[in-house]
């Protein structure tokens, strides 16, 4: 029985992932071609695409999506590499990791709200320089956020993705064999006379980058198609393509749906094009710098660059922390006049007010998060167990499918998926929301559990089996207890991802289920700063509690086990 379940779990996983993504894409395609039985439209044709092409400002939308996606990914990657290069052999790398780690749990919407508060005309940055430097006694006219060039979006995305990429790189370097080899090779390069920065770029990076490729591509795909960041920080006339698509889909004029579906396909092509462009860029850079690697030059102004990097890193870190402190202060702020750096008094009333309205979204957030995460963790564990029982790794195809939801823009298939969901089951929206969340939670849970599962000492299982334990007993009584801590981390991560989902919640529930995140985004552009600060803070606190529990519980349990 148990071995049967385990055996079929990878196939079940594929169905759970392929069916919604592929089904969603197909139904978006059908709608784009004008075939929408729900709207009683059956005249198939290209009128959706025609309408899209004649939309004023379409090219601006596309350009905005491309530039914000590409530039923010480039910036985040460059900063990541510079920090790694400058601090590769220094104790500071661990300190930066510890400092940035907790930032990972901040959902995009909360990060966007915090960055908005930072760069707004009356935001923390202009308060810090007023009036002593700027001479401003009143908040100036400013273009941030919502600037037409998408600079605010780029700042937001870069600051949000930098910690993610950096931690992915440090995670790769923490793999025992691989990390040791890279550190030793770096040392060899130092002994051969290379300065530390040059050694990193000529020796370490070529080996490290292949492990960074998937995270970088997922950042690129996300950045080019995200909705929360441009919605909160971006311009409105016109917005990015993804935001425009969302508006069209939600428009009361149902005729806009055909155009929106066509635009969703355009978004898919845009993101796919960016990914291809990026991969081509990698090839070109590899070709161009082939000779550079072995030309024997050991120093490229390393001391100068080292200083620049220290300054830039400090600047980015202080941006992030000023933004967060500003956010927390707004959530408690009483009266707060412009150039003052601190509010005149701190009050609880915004929280008290929010708590009255928040119980429903809070329960929804927790219920969806817990059910989704439990499903994701169980499915992942079963798949990894099947890998060990079959003594062969999952196929490359399975991997590709698991990471698919990270690379295909949600906005391109979610509308189709929602349409399918309503066709099959429009009664229990709760179930639909969970299925959509699962698509985005699974890849992260899978990523986070894989390496610990594979590192399990196989001899424990062999000993148990030789004592007559069934595979089922080995799984529950030998393997799972050893994985207690990694499973808790995966649960915390899954919860954090689920808590932060905006588009899947909004669409799959047809707006009928509100969560902290949907409320935060809805409030970000309308309500008072104080209210939206409260929601953003709650958005950050929830996942943080999860991670703190995941960190504390194992210590508590193992301590009692020892006594």
């Amino acid at each position, binding site marked *: 029985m148990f071995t049967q379940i385990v055996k079929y779990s990878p196939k079940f996983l594929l169905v759970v992932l392929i069916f919604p993504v592929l089904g969603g894409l197909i139904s978006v395609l059908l709608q784009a071609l004008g075939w929408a039985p729900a709207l009683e439209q059956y005249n198939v044709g290209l009128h959706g695409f025609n309408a899209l092409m004649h939309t004023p400002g379409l090219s601006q939308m596309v350009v905005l999506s491309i530039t914000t996606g590409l530039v923010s990914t480039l910036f985040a990657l460059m900063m990541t590499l510079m920090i790694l290069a400058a601090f590769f052999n220094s104790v500071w790398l661990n300190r930066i990791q510890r400092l940035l780690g907790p930032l990972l749990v901040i959902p995009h919407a909360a990060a966007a709200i915090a960055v908005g508060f930072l760069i707004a005309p009356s935001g923390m940055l202009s308060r810090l320089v007023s009036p002593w430097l700027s001479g401003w006694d009143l908040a100036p006219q400013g273009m941030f956020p919502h600037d037409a060039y998408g600079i605010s979006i780029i700042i937001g995305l870069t600051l949000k993705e930098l910690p993610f990429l950096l931690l992915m790189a440090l995670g790769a370097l923490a793999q025992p064999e691989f990390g040791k080899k890279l550190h*030793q090779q770096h040392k060899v390069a130092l002994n051969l006379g290379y300065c530390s920065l040059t050694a990193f770029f000529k*020796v370490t990076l070529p080996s490290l980058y292949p492990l960074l490729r998937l995270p970088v591509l997922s950042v690129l795909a996300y950045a080019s198609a995200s909705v929360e960041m441009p919605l909160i920080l971006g311009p409105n006339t016109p917005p990015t393509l993804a935001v425009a698509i969302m508006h069209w889909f939600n428009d009361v004029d149902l005729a806009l749906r055909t155009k929106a579906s066509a635009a969703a396909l355009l978004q898919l092509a845009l993101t796919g094009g960016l990914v291809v462009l990026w991969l081509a860029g990698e090839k070109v850079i590899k070709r161009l710098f082939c000779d550079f690697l072995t030309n024997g030059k050991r120093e490229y102004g390393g001391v100068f660059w080292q200083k620049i990097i220290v300054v830039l890193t400090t600047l980015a870190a202080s941006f992030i922390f000023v933004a967060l402190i500003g956010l927390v202060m707004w959530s408690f702020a009483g009266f707060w006049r412009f150039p003052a750096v601190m509010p005149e008094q701190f009050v609880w009333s915004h929280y008290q007010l929010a708590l009255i309205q928040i119980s429903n979204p809070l329960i929804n957030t927790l219920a969806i998060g817990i059910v989704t995460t439990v499903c994701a963790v169980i499915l992942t564990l079963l798949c990894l167990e099947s890998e060990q029982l079959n003594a062969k790794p999952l196929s490359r195809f399975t991997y590709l499918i698991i990471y698919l939801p990270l690379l295909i823009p949600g906005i391109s298939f979610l509308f189709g998926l929602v349409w399918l969901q309503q066709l099959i089951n429009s009664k229990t929206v709760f179930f639909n929301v969970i299925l959509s969340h699962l698509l985005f939670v699974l890849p992260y849970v899978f990523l986070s559990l894989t390496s610990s599962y594979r590192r399990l000492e196989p001899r424990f299982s062999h000993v148990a089996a030789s004592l007559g334990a069934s595979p089922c007993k080995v799984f529950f009584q030998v393997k799972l207890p050893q994985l207690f801590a990694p499973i808790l981390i995966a649960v915390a991560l899954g919860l954090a991802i689920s808590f932060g989902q905006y588009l899947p919640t909004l669409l799959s529930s047809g707006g009928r289920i509100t969560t902290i995140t949907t409320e935060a985004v809805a409030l970000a552009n309308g309500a008072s700063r104080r209210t939206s600060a409260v929601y953003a803070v709650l958005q950050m606190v929830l996942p943080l509690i999860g991670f703190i529990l995941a960190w504390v519980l194992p210590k508590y349990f193992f301590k009692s086990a020892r006594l």
Partner: protein
Amino acid sequence: MQSSLQIKNLQLFRQNEQLLSVNEQVVGGDILTIMGPSGSGKSSLLNWITGTLASSFKASGEIWLDGINIDKTPTHLRHIGVLYQDALLFSHLSVEGNIAFAMPKGNKKERIEKIEHALEQVGLKGLKDRHPDNLSGGQQARVALLRMLLSEPKAILLDEPFSKLDTQLRVDIRQLVFDQIRDHKLPAIMVTHDHSDAEAAKGKVITLDLIR
């Protein structure tokens, strides 16, 4: 002037516990052998000489290379070549790339000729375009040796460089390395726990004890 590597009054500590004290001078072409059980601080001694001592260790003493004090010199400017237990060839570069990486910059054609000549000398003719992962252990060790020598070091450290090779190969590679050290008249320090290495080096041998 004869080249020399001198360790003056080195005392090495791990968390206030003294591991070793060394006061030695090696001249060009000589090989000083340091023996001792694992945990006696042999590798940390080499890390101190190259300037990569981990922060959990403390050291006092001076290191002089060719009459210049290099205590404060950053690792990459010390011109000290190291051979490790593993060949540690760069897997993103070919055999030729690995060696070219180590050579000083210069005329591309001359560098390639020099690499080909060096490969021929150690019996690796025609392997320059091979990927290091496709070489045998002995071939990898030879490429690592060439890479180190062509970087034109002023002194050489050997960190148990033969311990992963099987017996016959070990004798051959050891002979090759020692011959090259004597030909280039470079001072060398070798740490090992193999007595045959120490005998073959024909130099002074220091044995470290675990200090409790």
